[in-house]
């Protein structure tokens, strides 16, 4: 094994990161943390892309990662604005209290 970053190892790491992110989204009530967890999931996916890109030996995966990073940046901008607006409206950043859409 000349390659210190074996594909399997990196994919497993990506899966672990993604699961942590998903757990964070589901469990945490603080909306900032939830937000960070989402970022974690995005970057787990980025990691998998890069790994596969390296494994297959062409750049498509890495190109996608650049798109994802851009998208994440945009998401942060919009998401933080939403959070600020939510805080102004409800005075809290608890996701469980943001239940206006209850049918």
């Amino acid at each position, binding site marked *: 094994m000349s390659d210190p970053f074996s594909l399997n190892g990196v994919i497993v790491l990506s899966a672990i990161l993604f699961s942590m992110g998903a757990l964070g989204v589901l469990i945490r009530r603080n909306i900032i943390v939830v937000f960070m967890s989402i970022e974690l999931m995005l970057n787990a996916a980025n990691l998998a892309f890069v790994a596969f890109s390296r494994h297959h030996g062409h750049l498509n995966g890495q190109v996608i990662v650049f798109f994802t990073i851009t998208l994440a940046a945009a998401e942060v901008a919009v998401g933080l604005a939403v959070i600020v607006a939510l805080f102004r409206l409800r005075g809290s950043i608890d996701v*469980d209290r943001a*239940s206006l859409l209850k*049918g």
Partner: protein
Amino acid sequence: MTGHQASDSFLSTLPAGVEEWSWVPLVLIFPFIGFVINGIWGRRLPEILVGTIASLAIFLSFLSATYLFVTLVNLPPKFRTVEVHLFPWLTAGPVPIPATLLLDPLSVTMALTVTSVSFLIHIYSIGYMAEDPELGRYFALLNLFVFFMLTLVMAGNGAVLFIGWEGVGFCSFALISFWYSRDAAAEAGKKAFIVTRTGDLFFLLSLLTLLALFGTLSFGDISLAIARNQPITSLSGVREPAREVLLHPTGFFGADLVTLICLGLFAGAVGKSAQLPLYVWLPDAMEGPTPVSALIHAATMVTGGVYLVARLHFLFALSPVASGVVAGVAALTAIYSALLACVENDIKRVLAYSTISQIAYMFLGCASGASSAGLYHLVTHAYFKALLFLSAGSVLHATGNILDMRRLGGLARRMKATTVSFWIGGLALSGIIPSGLFSKDFILAYASQSAWYPFALATAFLTAFYITRLGVKVFHGSPREPEIVSHAHESPQVMTIPMGLLATGTIAVSVLWLPPFIKPFHPLSDFLLPSLGPTHELAHEKEIAVTIFSLTVSGAGLLLAVFVYLWRPGLLWGLAQRLPWVYQLVAHKFYVDEIYLSLTARPAKRASQLISGAFDLGVIDALVNGTGALVAYLGNQSRRVQTGAVRNYALTILFAGALVLIFLIVRSGRAP
């Protein structure tokens, strides 16, 4: 375009492809072009142009008809019937129905009458309707009306005739309710349409029966088949000679087939020509503009029924029963509507009842075996009735639409031309001066053998009475409301000149058929001979007797009216108060409108209420509202899914993502 080949003496034609016959459709095309121009650009064209175009269209049509007439006259009588094929129109299985026109003395006579009278009415309309904002629509419809009437009279087969028949029905509807913003006008238009449609249903049934029997609707072919007694297929599928099939008794009270067919045709004619019991629409039709009334009464529409009976006289000749019914209905209608005219106070309605009564005369003539006498009266009536209506229109124009004759009087001093026109028309109508004198006396003479003669004679008396009453009340005596009369003025020349021409025409058409004791001169009946068959000669003494008798009777009616309305006004009022029930009965028009309402309109209304209550609310609305309620219920149930908790949604997304992933993995495992 080809002349139709048939060699029998009854229907003889020129060889195919003769150049003259390309003129035939022109008679129809000109009014149609007028309709299209005024229908599309009528709003934008200057007013004077609109009326000019419409009148010009009819005038060109009149010229074409004249040309056709001259062409026909120059042919030997047995070649004067031409069927012109325009184009193949409908094909029902093995039965082709081409669009054909029939050019024969009858259709040319009708076309000439229609176009000449219509032309004068169009000119008159330019003056009468001058201030109307919707001149384009008016003249477009007027042209269309003439177009359909010409289609009706020139039709070569029943299908084309039916198009014309329904077309005039539609145009009368549209023109009677021309001022549609007035309720009465809208109602009257509806009434005219629905009542005539009632008769049309039976008319259509008869046409379809003829089609089933003969396999053609061509008048020429049908008359030929009957004349030659050709084998045709009866309704039960047996091939037998035509007359046997037609005279075969049916299950319907044992009446023979041809009787039923004729009665159906006559029912259509009764509706269109406003005879008992379907006359109710015509008096209401007075809601339309006065020139329209003149057109409906004189040239178009109501004479269609008489034309139909005359055109199909060979069918009626086979059925004495049907002819008897025609005569009976005609006689009763004549006297009934003349009675109503005697008590009506609305100027135009008096004329309307008078038309009903005169049309009945024409039917009586046709049913008495003298179709050409009926046609003669149709022609003369077209002139003098148009003249009467235009005079009435002139009175309305002068007085600001005052229809009630009780408010008028003494107009003669201010409107000389109108008064003279009215009296020429009125005296012709009464049968005191030609041409009404001659045409009415021919009918009376031919009907003198029938049991209905007394009715016809009594009608002549009443006719003279009511028209004199109308004339005396409107034009003579002292003005009842002087401020109306003092504002009255003679109508412009564009109206009085057509009246003068019609008055001239009224007198002039009398030369078409002179009584034999004056001079045995009868070009009209000779001309119509190939179409209508011969009419038997009347004995001179008999004709003189009838003429003297009817003149006496009409004169008596006239004098009586002058006596009770001009010299002794008030006499009649006393009589009416002494016999209140008679007066009430006649004044309410024998309660016929009320009876019809309670027999037709009211049950229909009640049925509608039932349907709107039980069916519409109970079934239709329940279905519609039920669908809505079901959707609302389902929505209520399913909205619980939306918890509003962000983490629930996240979990759902995660699970769904996981499921997709599992699905992809499983599938890629299976794939080779």
